[in-house]
Structures are given as C-alpha cells and as structure tokens.
C-alpha cells in the first residue's frame, strides 16, 4: 500500500469497515510511514468527535410526530376511499379477459368484434370517469387535511372538480369552513360551497356556521353565499344576527342587507 491508497482507505479504517486484509495492510503502512500515521491520528481524533456531535444537536419538536400520524391517518383514509385503478382492475381480470377474447375470436367470429369493442369502450370510459372522480375526491380530501395552509387551499381548489353529489368532499369543506385555523382557507372553502348549494345539508350548515365564526370576513362571505343560493329559509336566523349586538357591526349590516334581498 502506498500513501495515496492509504489516504483513500483512511476514513474506512477509522470506521473499522475495511476488510481484515486491507486493514492489516493499512496498519503495516502507517507503522512505517510517519506522515500517514500522523494524519491518521489527527483525522482520527476529528472522526471520533464527529460521532459525538449528533448528541449535541437539537431534536425535532413533538409536533413533528403529531403531524406525521395525523397525515398518515389522512392518507390511509384517502386510500380507503379510492377505488382500484383501471390498470389494477384490468390486471386482476386479465386471464378472464384473455380467455373471453379467445372464445370470441374462435366461436363468434371476427364480424361480431366491432360491436363488442364499441360496448367495451363505452363501459371503460364510464369506469375511467368514475376513477377520475374518486382520484379527485382523494386528492381534495387528503390535501384539505394537510398542515400547511397552502396545501389546504390546494385541497379546496380540488373540491371544485368533485361531483356536486360528493358528500365526502362536502363534509370536508364544511369541516374546513367551521374549523380551519386559516381565514383564507375558510374563505376559499365558503366559495367552493357554491357548487354544493343544492344540497339541503349545505344550506343548513351555512346558516349554522355563521354565529360560530370568529372572523367577520368569513361571516360576511357566508351571508353572501346564502343570498347567492337564495336560501330564503335563512331569514329568521339572519334577523337574529342583525339584532345581535355581540356580533361585529359590519356583519349585522350585511345580514340586514341579505334579509332585504332574500325577502324581495
């Protein structure tokens, strides 16, 4: 072993990860080479020090673990609500499909094929559409449960792509409107509720949410939504709001204005 080779083996020698023969060669080299022995001692001391450094470093905060388990639960929930993909289904049924195709080819004859293909295409498109919808739902639901407000906003924007009949996305949006820590996310979720406005659940939930809100901005957005959706049955609640002195003055004014619009 020469000095050049010894230098390259030095870190592994210090980590005791050289094989026995190589380690012996290294030891023999430094026994006869002052420069390499001195370097091994100097760097060896730093190498040992490096192994002690992690003990002097900060540990991650407890909330890292909390966030991880929350996110994992959300992900599992998202996975459970997602249907198997078109490819997975195709792979599962491939032997049957192959057999059916063969039987068709032999028994029915080539002329029957165009009609069968057209039918398969139709059901495949429907299946794909269903899968796309469930993927959109999964993405929206997963993102709405993220820690970062930016991610949750993305989740809300995905909710626009969900079907208006999707009760899971509606439920997630209502939870966001009522509980999200960020006013911006809550406001975005209120806007996204427009698409679900036909559902009586949405209409009742909007009315119930207004007094729970701590932000006048969100309260006003909810009142505007009631007007947009023409929720006339909200009139008694709006009357109460407009008379409640504990509520922000601008909210009371807006409730009054909404009453006028709904009772026209």
């Amino acid at each position: 072993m020469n000095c050049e080779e010894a230098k390259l083996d030095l870190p592994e020698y210090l980590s005791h990860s050289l094989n026995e023969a190589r380690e012996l060669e290294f030891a023999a080299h430094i026994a006869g080479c002052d420069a390499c022995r001195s370097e091994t001692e100097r760097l060896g001391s730093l190498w040992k020090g490096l192994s002690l450094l992690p003990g002097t470093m900060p540990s991650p905060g407890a909330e890292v673990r909390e966030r991880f388990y929350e996110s994992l639960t959300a992900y599992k929930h998202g996975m459970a609500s997602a249907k198997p993909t078109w490819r997975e289904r195709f792979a599962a049924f491939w032997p049957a499909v192959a057999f059916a195709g063969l039987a068709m080819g032999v028994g029915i004859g080539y002329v029957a094929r165009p009609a069968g293909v057209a039918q398969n295409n139709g059901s495949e498109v429907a299946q794909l559409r269903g899968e796309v919808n469930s993927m959109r739902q999964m993405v929206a639901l997963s993102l709405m449960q993220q820690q970062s407000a930016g991610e949750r906003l993305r989740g809300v924007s995905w909710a626009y792509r969900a079907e208006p009949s999707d009760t899971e996305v509606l439920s997630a949006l209502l939870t966001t409107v009522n509980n999200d820590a960020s006013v911006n996310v809550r406001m975005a979720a209120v806007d996204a509720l427009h698409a679900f406005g036909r559902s009586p659940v949405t209409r009742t939930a909007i009315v119930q949410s207004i007094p729970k809100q701590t932000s006048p901005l969100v309260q006003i957005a909810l009142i505007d939504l009631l007007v947009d959706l023409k929720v006339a049955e909200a009139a008694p609640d709006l009357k109460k709001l407009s008379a409640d002195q504990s509520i922000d003055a601008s909210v009371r004014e807006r409730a009054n204005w909404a009453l006028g619009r709904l009772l026209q």
Partner: protein
Amino acid sequence: MAAVSAGEVQKLAVLFERHHRGLFRYFVSMNRSREASEDLVQDVFFRMLRYRASYDAKQSFTAWMYQIARNASVDQAQRRRGEVIGIEEFADRRADGAPGPEESAAQTQDLKLLRQALDRLPPDKREILVLSRFEGMKHEELAKVLDCEVGTVKVRVYRAMRALEQAYSALIGEKTA
C-alpha cells in the same frame, strides 16, 4: 419499507420512529433551520408514501430514503429562493438533556468548535461527513445517494475530512489569536 410498498402504509410509522431524528439532524446540519427541517422530515415521509412503488427491496432503504431527502431539500431550497432564512444557533446539549460523565468542559468546547468547523464547510463536504458519520452510511450507500462511484466517494470523504481539519485548525487559531 417492503411492506409499505406492498400497501401496508401504517408500517411507515415504524420507519418514522426509527429514522425521523436522523433525517432531522441531516437537514439541520444542511440548512440550520429547525422549522424548515421539521417540514422537510414530513415531506420525506410523504414522498415515501407517494413513491413507495419505486422502492426496490434489494437496495439499501437508508440510501433510498436519503435520495428522497436530498430531492426534498433541493425542492424546498428552490421554493424558498429569495426568502431570508434565519440561521439558528442551537444550544449545546446532549440528546437526553444531561451532560454525560465523560463530557468534560474541554470536550464540550472542542465539540462546539468542531460543529462550527463543520458549519464552515461547503455543503457538499458537510453533507458527505454528516451522512457518513452521523448516519453511519457505508461508501456503497453513499455512492447511491450521491449518484457517483464508490471510488469517488472515497476521494470525497477524504477531502471533506481534510477540509474539516483545516477549518477546525483555523478556528483554534482564531481563538488563540
């Protein structure tokens, strides 16, 4: 990870408990920001879920995880380009919060200097030392993570050690001057 890859995503919790501190140390060593490092730890485990199908059980899990960690770090740096990131000073402490009997004041001082020397290294040199010494990665694993030959890793680790020695000596010189 093979179980996670096969769909048993709840087993990711085992990997989280085993590796999140090491990942955090790696990120803190590279960016000196607790907040950014905590976000990156989350990001890495999310990416593991997202890309679990790409995991090859024949390869080192640690190498795969640190490949993801490096990508996450690069992505975050790009997102934060232009932002001013506060460099945090972390108090000296052991992981269990109490000084060990073997830990003399002189040793504590030496470790402080060593950490400062490590911080002074260029990121590529700091990274290879952190991965190899803090995380105990073998040269073969490092070659995977850094996408280079094992021979190159040997050269790079040696050079990083020499650079650390120089930085450490310079700090001692500054202290005694």
